[in-house]
């Protein structure tokens, strides 16, 4: 069902506006780099726009966008690991300057990402989708191939472990 009429266009615009900050946050937490996060967010949202225009809204715009963002982030992270030596050689990890004002925020993000990296992959993914991406537990469960109760258990475990890790770090 191609998009016809202004109401669907308004709905699409509203969906984009609502999803953009969430998918950007999620992508930034996954990659740690603003450029990569923007690329992932743009592509997953643009895929939603194309689908919406060609066949109408998907069953869940949220699930659609986050499924693409999750796959895309995985691919980009793999590619970044492959090219990292060259990027570092060329001093191009982050093309923008890193002024002092951004340094503190970056330090906090790095600290959180280091703690997140110690979690089990699925625990981390569940936490990023639900806590950072604001995805509902039911959608996250469907996306990760888990039951809702399994997601709840993973979320509880991930939060507790992350809190303990950060507590320890701040105490030392």
């Amino acid at each position, binding site marked *: 069902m191609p998009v016809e009429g202004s109401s669907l266009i308004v709905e*699409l*615009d509203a969906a*984009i*506006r609502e999803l*953009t*900050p969430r998918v*950007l*946050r*999620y992508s*930034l*937490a996954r990659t740690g780099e*603003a*450029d*990569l*996060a*923007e*690329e992932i*967010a*743009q*592509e997953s*949202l*643009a895929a*939603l*726009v*194309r689908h919406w*225009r060609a066949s109408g809204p998907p069953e869940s715009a949220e699930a659609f966008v986050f499924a693409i963002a999750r796959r895309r982030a995985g691919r980009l992270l793999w590619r970044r690991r492959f*090219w990292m030596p*060259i*990027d570092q*050689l*060329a001093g*191009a990890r982050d*093309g923008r300057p890193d002024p002092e004002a951004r340094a503190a*925020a970056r330090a*906090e*993000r790095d600290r*959180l990402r280091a703690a997140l990296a110690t979690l089990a992959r699925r625990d981390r993914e569940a*936490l*990023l989708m*639900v*806590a*950072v991406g*604001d995805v509902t537990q039911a959608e996250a469960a469907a996306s990760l191939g888990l039951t809702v109760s399994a997601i709840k258990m993973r979320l*509880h475990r991930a*939060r*507790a472990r*992350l*809190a*303990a890790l*950060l*507590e320890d770090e*701040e105490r030392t």
Partner: protein
Amino acid sequence: MTTHPDDIDRRLRTAFDADPASVECVAAAASSGNPVRRRQPGGVRMLRFALAAVVVLLLAIGVWRLQPAPDLSPSGGLDGWFAGDVLVAPIVDGSVAIVGPGTRDDRPPDGLGIVLVSGEDR
């Protein structure tokens, strides 16, 4: 800074929140259905291209080196191979016919015969 489990979500959201300009830019690019691709600095692109070219070249050389040696016994019944200008041929029936007009080189039976070959005879 608190690290109680209940505050983890809030802390994560705050840390990874995107700036409004970035949100606006991404939303606009996505709405157009035509995302703007991130451009790598020129130096990085050149280094990546150079690395890819070297890999392709090495693969091509590897494939070329793995090609089987040409068959030397299509008509004269001579099995052998060249090492530079030297023809190494096994002696099967007590003698081996070496290419060249009317040339015959008798060798002891069994083993390998080595013959220097150059010019048209090669």
